């Protein structure tokens, strides 16, 4: 697929000597929602910072919609919008003024209709004449989003947009992200709420200690790395060894009443031989009362991936 952001061999070593990004290679596809996951200090904000022009890379290159972020920074940056992780606002400006300022700063002619649309979508319209200092934290975050959208970017970076945000705003925000995607905007977000990535993202990248651990289509990731645990509750304690029911490693609980095993994959068509096992159980006259299949969440996958490396 046609990539819109291409990160090649990107390295960042801070002045402190900290190696925050280690030879990152990453392609973001045009029009997708890409979730970047990783524990605190993994390098997510640093990576976004380099792409947006806040952090100078030590080595490597980045292009945004074909424009190099260093040699052709004007074209590259004009297409990018950034909602930073930290709530940094100009306290004494009014909402309308600060959003209009952003549009101008990014080189676009004034367009009050566009600003009004954004403010209405973000439920900021009735606050347009308020000073930012008088807004709540969630409202300030909306203002930051409005600022990032003011110049109609084609690529939007959301660095932990839902940290410290209530349920309603979160829902509004995701609705807006979906609308933007429908308009063809590419969205790259970071989050610590994995269910969010699971719900929203088309693809997921996991970064840990400055290295990309995996980049995968969300479904494929869950299929490939997700595990399904099957638990069978028996009516009578089982006395024979579970190996009588096939080669797969199974565990039997101490009381002999619960038989369980785990297989990789999402389940579905490839059921890990559950049906086969059930037939064998029946053939041997073993009665059971319950069968439970438990698919691991993205969160479990994430913990596995990051845990392995740390």
């Amino acid at each position, binding site marked *: 697929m046609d990539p819109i952001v291409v990160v090649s061999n990107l390295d960042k070593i801070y002045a402190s000597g900290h190696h925050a990004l280690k030879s990152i290679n990453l392609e973001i596809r045009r029009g997708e929602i890409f979730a970047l996951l990783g524990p605190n200090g993994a390098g997510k904000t*640093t990576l976004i910072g380099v792409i947006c*022009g806040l952090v100078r890379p030590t080595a490597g290159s980045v292009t945004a919609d074909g424009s190099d972020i260093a040699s052709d920074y*004007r074209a590259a*940056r*004009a297409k990018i919008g950034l909602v930073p992780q930290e709530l940094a606002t100009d306290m004494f400006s009014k909402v309308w003024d600060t959003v209009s300022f952003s549009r*101008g*700063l990014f*080189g676009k002619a004034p367009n009050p209709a566009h600003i009004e649309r954004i403010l209405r979508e973000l439920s900021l319209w009735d606050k347009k004449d308020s000073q930012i200092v008088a807004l709540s934290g969630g409202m300030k975050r909306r203002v930051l989003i409005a600022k990032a959208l003011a110049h109609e970017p084609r690529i939007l970076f959301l660095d932990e947009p839902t940290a410290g945000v209530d349920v309603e705003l979160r829902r509004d925000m995701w609705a807006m992200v979906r609308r933007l995607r429908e308009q063809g905007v590419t969205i790259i977000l970071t989050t610590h709420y994995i269910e969010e990535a699971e719900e929203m993202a088309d693809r997921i990248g996991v970064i840990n200690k400055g290295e990309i651990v995996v980049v995968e289509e969300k479904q494929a990731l869950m299929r490939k790395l997700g595990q399904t645990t099957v638990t069978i509750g028996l009516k009578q304690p089982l006395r024979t060894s579970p190996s009588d029911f096939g080669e797969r490693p199974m565990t039997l609980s101490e009381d002999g009443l619960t038989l369980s095993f785990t297989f990789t994959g999402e389940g579905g068509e490839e059921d890990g031989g559950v049906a086969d096992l059930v037939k064998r159980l029946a053939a041997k006259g073993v009665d059971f009362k319950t069968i439970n299949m438990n698919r691991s969440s993205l969160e479990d996958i994430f913990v596995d991936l990051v845990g392995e490396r740390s």
Partner: protein
Amino acid sequence: MNFFAVRAIYMFELARSRRTLLQSIAAPVISTSLYFIVFGSAIGGRMTTIDGVSYGAFIVPGLIMLTLLTESVSNASFGIYLPRFTGTIYELLSAPVSVFEVLLGYVGAAATKSIILGVIILGTARIFVPFDIVHPVWTGIFLVLISVTFSLFGFILGVWADGFEKLQVVPLMILSPLTFLGGTFYSIDMLPPPWRTIVLFNPVVYLVNGFRWAFYGIADVTVAVSLGLTAIFMIVCLGVIAWIFKTGYRLRG
């Protein structure tokens, strides 16, 4: 050229001082008026003229210079320091703007404010003492040149400073003393011989004298030297700023 960005920054910076109109304009006007009342009217009445200029009129260019220098430096330094302090600088750094456009916005706004203030103080002075300006065009040129140059210097200060104290130290502890000792209230000829030489190492002497020459056609030093020094200082500031943006010094991580 990102014209909209320059306009956005410029208007934003002017709006910032409109919010603090009282401090921005009233404070310097009041303090300058006090100087005119004390030095110009009270003491000046007992002073003889200097090179044919009444003492009250003699101090006008120096006092305007004092305001131009301190206001240019504090406005420009504050303008760029504030977004660094609050974190809103992320937006400027991620915007499709060149160094030149950033300067045009920030330094242009700071210089504009200084020029407006300079003109207001000139008007205020005229209320207290009568004077005629001999070279009005040169007066304008000096006004603009010095406001721009010291706004550039203020911009550097605002990028370098890592605390509010440092922002205040330079105008208060360096520029004000240099201006006071730089011949605002006296002609160099009035000093005893060793001081007459020592004072020539104070760059502000040349600025005050250049400006005074534009007003009254009199000066202790050559006007060309005044202009030359200002131009050199401006070029040095521009060079430092170019270096700041090239290396990302204190702006980009």
